[in-house]
């Protein structure tokens, strides 16, 4: 399936891009992050991240569908 990834903050720095289209057999955010972590060398354990699918917070085990926008959120520092 094909997913659209957005990257922010240090994840964007590590990936060297702010977005990318990914073709993957990962069926949920947990599996997808494991693949992308290996590809881009992300330093965060998933326990320190949140994940959003199509603009809403989601579970790591939520079933992904073709075309979903997936965003891994590192710890925030607004305010």
């Amino acid at each position: 399936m094909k997913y659209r990834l957005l990257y922010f903050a240090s994840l964007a720095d590590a990936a060297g891009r702010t977005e990318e289209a990914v073709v993957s057999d990962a069926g949920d955010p947990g599996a997808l992050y494991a693949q992308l972590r290996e590809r881009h060398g992300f330093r965060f354990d998933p326990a320190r991240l949140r994940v959003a699918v199509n603009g809403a917070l989601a579970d790591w085990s939520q079933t992904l569908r073709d075309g979903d926008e997936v965003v891994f959120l590192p710890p925030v520092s607004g305010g």
Partner: protein
Amino acid sequence: MSAFALIGRPIDAAAERRHLDHPAAGACVTFEGWVRDHNEGRPVLRLDYQAYAALAEREGEAILSDACARFPIRAARCLHRVGRLEIGDLAVWVGVSADHRGAAFDACRWIIDEIKRRVPIWKNEHYADGESGWLHPDGSAAGAVQFPGSTLSAS
């Protein structure tokens, strides 16, 4: 206009404050977050805020709605800057009006705590020594794990 917004230009605090007016309100508490010239002992020159806008606005609105349900208040608003900011710039503004001051203080503090805890906005600090780094607080007392910025990670 919605009660929470990301904004790429300077915040007009006086104009925002007027949106809180209510004839039954006797108290108004505002919080302003300013860009400091230091963090964890390092001199800071400027910073950049980046946001995942769609989710940040959804989370921000949810926090303000929650505040109106949790506390006896009349109105609550929040604006957060994105982009480049200089020392002394107003980065985030929160305002609450209420009949009584206790609820106004409690709600204002709760809102800024929640904004900092869960709204997807990230700060990149640029230091006097030329380094920069995204701040990713780890929940410890130290407050933040710092990641070198893209300039450094290219080396």
